């Protein structure tokens, strides 16, 4: 498996070098620097030289590199590198060059713990934080045998994500449903692709070892009596008409879901019940994908006209498509301009627009966008003449926003039940939010 983990900054300085096998030699650091960092031609995240494979990801201003010498599991390698980033962020807030330089001892310690002989071990943040800590204070706990045997028990147990002795005076659980809606709209206004990537994040402050059951308005679950059954209905096969009525009746079709490792996958597979013992504190319970009946919160009508070679005229209209009781915040529209734009003028019916030359964008910000309203931007970009006329790639116009209490997929949490042997009552809170994923609109 992994022969070593290396971390570089953008200049190619080796910040971390941890070999797990004898075949990971120090010289490999130089080779990666020369072949990848110093070589702008490299377009692939995987590079094999001789029998050595470098798999790298870039995060902030550092390169994280895994060295392998065998026919390693590539998906696992990248997943591991991304897990390392998650760990780094939860330990240092931001996982960049500075964090690595300031905490290199801790990073070595972490690497020692999460990889053994190149095989990933327990990488759960919460568990690791119990015995590998930024401040030296808590490591005193790890020094006492009784505590540490408890820790190790947890680090390897079947419930490796939860301590057994958690106590809260007030038992609460917060559920956040966060959806990223992706849209790709063609120049003629047809939706090429619209889907929702959702995640359900839970913050559980519950005493003991609670067993939770979680219910959504998932169509398959609501329909479990119907003839389609657990497998048949998934791929579709039900007419579009039927789908629409289902949606109106308040159920959604989830194309696919993925769960935190605490969820009993077997039970979900058999009868689509989401049942789990949650980790303490915040965690991502599930991710899902929906592609049917996606409610697009914004309709955008861009008109872009190139007038000769010296001017581009824009007229962009945005209409909010959700209930007038709701409002979106931080709506940002990015309108691409040609590379040789000299100056721009903008007029808006709401919010502010500004030209950002470094991004080649006109950025139109609307702090609060209430439902059903419609705003317009008119802009004009004056171009300088260039000796070498290179075609403008006309990147799509893009949007970012967030809307509370709205889900594009129509997903709702129907219930969250908590069972614990002491039978306490608990308070649950649910919040919904929809954000823009990649919300792109092409124009002619």
């Amino acid at each position: 498996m992994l022969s070593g983990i290396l971390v570089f900054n953008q200049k190619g300085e080796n910040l971390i070098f941890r070999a797990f096998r004898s075949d990971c030699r120090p010289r490999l650091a130089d080779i990666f620097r020369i072949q990848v960092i110093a070589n702008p031609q490299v377009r692939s995240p995987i590079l094999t030289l001789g029998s050595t494979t470098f798999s790298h990801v870039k995060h902030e201003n550092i390169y994280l590199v895994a060295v392998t010498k065998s026919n390693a599991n590539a998906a696992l390698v990248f997943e591991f590198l991304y897990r390392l980033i998650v760990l780094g962020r939860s330990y240092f807030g931001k996982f960049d060059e500075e964090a690595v330089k300031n905490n290199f001892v801790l990073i070595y310690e972490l690497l020692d713990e999460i990889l053994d002989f190149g095989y990933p071990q327990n990488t759960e943040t919460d568990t690791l934080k119990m015995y590998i800590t930024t401040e030296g204070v808590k490591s005193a706990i790890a020094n006492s045998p009784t505590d540490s045997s408890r820790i190790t028990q947890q680090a390897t147990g079947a419930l490796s994500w939860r301590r057994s002795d958690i106590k809260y005076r007030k038992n609460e659980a917060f559920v956040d449903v966060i959806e990223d809606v992706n849209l790709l709209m063609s120049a003629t206004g047809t939706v090429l692709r619209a889907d929702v990537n959702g995640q359900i994040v839970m913050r559980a402050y519950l005493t003991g070892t609670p067993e939770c059951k979680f219910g959504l308005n998932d169509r398959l679950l609501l329909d479990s009596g119907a003839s389609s059954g657990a497998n048949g209905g998934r791929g579709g096969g039900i007419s579009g008409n039927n789908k629409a009525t289902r949606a109106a009746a308040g159920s959604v079709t989830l194309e696919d879901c993925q769960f935190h490792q605490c969820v009993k996958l077997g039970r979900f597979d058999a009868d689509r019940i989401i049942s789990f013992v949650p980790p303490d504190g915040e965690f991502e319970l599930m991710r899902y994908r929906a592609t049917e009946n996606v409610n697009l919160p914004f309709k955008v009508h861009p008109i872009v006209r190139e007038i000769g070679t010296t001017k581009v005229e824009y007229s962009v209209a945005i209409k909010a498509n959700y209930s007038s009781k709701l409002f979106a915040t931080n709506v940002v529209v990015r309108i691409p301009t040609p590379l040789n734009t000299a100056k721009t003028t903008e007029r808006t019916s709401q919010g502010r627009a500004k030209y950002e030359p470094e991004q080649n964008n006109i950025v139109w910000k609307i702090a609060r966008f209430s439902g059903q309203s419609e705003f317009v931007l008119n802009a004009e970009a004056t171009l300088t003449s260039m000796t070498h006329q290179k075609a403008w790639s006309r990147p799509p116009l893009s949007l970012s926003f967030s809307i509370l209490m709205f889900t594009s997929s129509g997903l709702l949490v129907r219930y969250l039940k908590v069972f614990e042997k002491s039978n306490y009552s608990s308070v649950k809170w649910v919040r919904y939010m929809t954000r823009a994923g990649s919300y792109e609109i092409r124009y002619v």
Partner: protein
Amino acid sequence: MAMNKIRGAFAVPRKGETFELRAGLVSQYAYERKESIQKTIMAMTLGKDVSALFPDVLKNIATSDLEQKKLVYLYLMNYAKSHPDLCILAVNTFVQDSEDPNPLIRALAIRTMGCIRVDKMVDYMEEPLRKTLHDESPYVRKTAAICVAKLFDLNPAMCLENGFLEMLQEMIGDPNPMVVANSVTALSEIHHTAPETQALQVTANTLRKMLMALNECTEWGRVTILSTLAEYRAVDVKESEHICERVAPQFQHVNAGVVLAAVKVVFLHMKYVGPELAKNYLKKMAPPLVTLVSSAPEVQYVALRNIDLLLQKQPDILNKELRVFFCKYNDPPYVKFQKLEIMVRIANDRNVDQLLAELKEYALEVDMDFVRRAVKAIGQVAIKIETASEKCVNTLLDLINTKVNYVVQEAIVVIKDIFRKYPGYEGIIPTLCQCIDELDEPNARAALIWIVGEYAEKISNAGDILGSFVDGFNEEFSQTQLQILTAVVKLFLKRPDKAQGLVQRVLQAATAENDNPDVRDRAYIYWRLLSNTSDQNATKNIVLSEKPPIVTTISSLPPALLEQLLQELSTLSSVYHKPPEQFVGQGRFGADAVQRAAIEEQLQNARENPLAAAAAVSGTASAQAQSNVENLLDIDFDGGAPASAHTEPSGEMSGLEGLAGTPVRVQSPAAGAPAPQASNNLDDLLGVFGDSGPSQPSSSGANGGGAADLMNGFSGLDLSGNAAHSQPQKSSQDIMDLL
């Protein structure tokens, strides 16, 4: 005391960083010592050689501070090889630590011991390892399990003699899922490095244990168990069904590694279950695969390469999911290229309109490489789906009208392929001929000339067009020259009156004034054919023979390789679409063997010719090293090598290249340069005719094969009609390639 003597031998410098670090390491204050250890580790990371501090760091090993202990251990692992004798001083601490009441320390000790690759340490490992394997804490047991693999790597004999393998095998039945996972990991590693040990034998019992642990262990453990299950061949249908049933829920895991590993297991075991059930699993597999496409770009890339493989085996699984593979503006190029290939693979007559609109959009972007691939994809779709061919041709014509140079060139190459399948589109030829002056790439020129030659009887000014090419014959690239030659001969055969002079000129130019043997050879073949008066129709039969239509231009892997790669799902080999042997050093030629051979050669050289060896070492070492960087990856002279071999072998490298096993540079397929132009002259055969076979052209195969076919064709012809008659089947096939 002994320490002092040794230190004296090193002649310590009195100033500098090392001196300061040393002073800190032996300080009387604990915090200063700890700080110095941290600084030492920092220096080690930066690549400075701090091995001289070994004895002083070692003094700090006996500490109750866990963090400090970890640092000292880290240092030990790195430099143990340079001070094998001193390591013995650490043994005692390790053995003590492995009996510490604190399980974290016990685990740490056994984990580190396995990483200190010094013979003396190995001798002391047996007892602690045996104890920790039976430790009460699962955390220690799971660490010890991995340690067995480490020991096997160091000293297989000792590992076998002490029965550690049997202990590991027993541990698959451990109540703790993580211990099970690590035991399986260790056993599978041992099994793969030394298959004769039969370390990992899956029985009904172990299978049950593994399936049980599967739902409880960490995600990484699941990957290990799933990989083992994938390699396991079930005894009967029932067992296969059972495995599929238990593994399928893992499709819902967050970790892409687990999902792909589960897909692999189900995909491989599916073969043995009933068709109805198998279909069901295929259906179930699709949504998770699609979900992988929205993960991080690198993971996405791996997933896409694997999806490509799965689609080659089961073309229908993602039929309805075309839109998911639409490229986003910000996708990295390697992802975009792969998405294009997959979109073409899942194209069918229902989604083709959507796909074409999208491909056209891509063809208008500015990234040249991407645009070319998009245009090529349009051609592939045209050939794949007959009903869509007209739309594709119209789209291509639209693109040609944009007059963007590289779009036009690529479109012409693509249209040539379309003519090979659908000869009926000759109406567009005038439009193509208008672009003639804009084509500057040999491929595009060759394609257009081929079209002109093929439809010579329908193009009134074919003679003029070809005439202008013949005028500049010797300035063309040789692949274009070959095409000009063929096209002129075709024109002559179809309309002898118009091309009499032309054919003379071109044959003259190709035989007398050309240096390229391929061009000359082909010209001679034609000359000979044309001067054959005995059978007037022979030449026509050969040059103007009916060509078999192309079936597809989508490249696919040969079935045997595909089967092999499906066994390797989610590994590097599935990303490269190459069998692992091609890029992983084989055992005998592995790093250690090469290193030994290199040292041997150095010594030999030094004995025979000390002067030359010295010169070679001091001389152009750096320049040589640069060019041989790939070989040096496998050869590294560190601690273990004798001093005389410490510098890079320079002049000797030439002898070593063969030894280095696989010093081939393998780049990810999508990352390669635009392939067609880059390769040699023979590409002409590939580019224009390589597609002729009824099966798909695999670019590398056809490349090499092209030359052979040409030679065969030649010899067949040289024996005049005789040979051609005796083996009509074969030689006509060869000639086909020639034309």
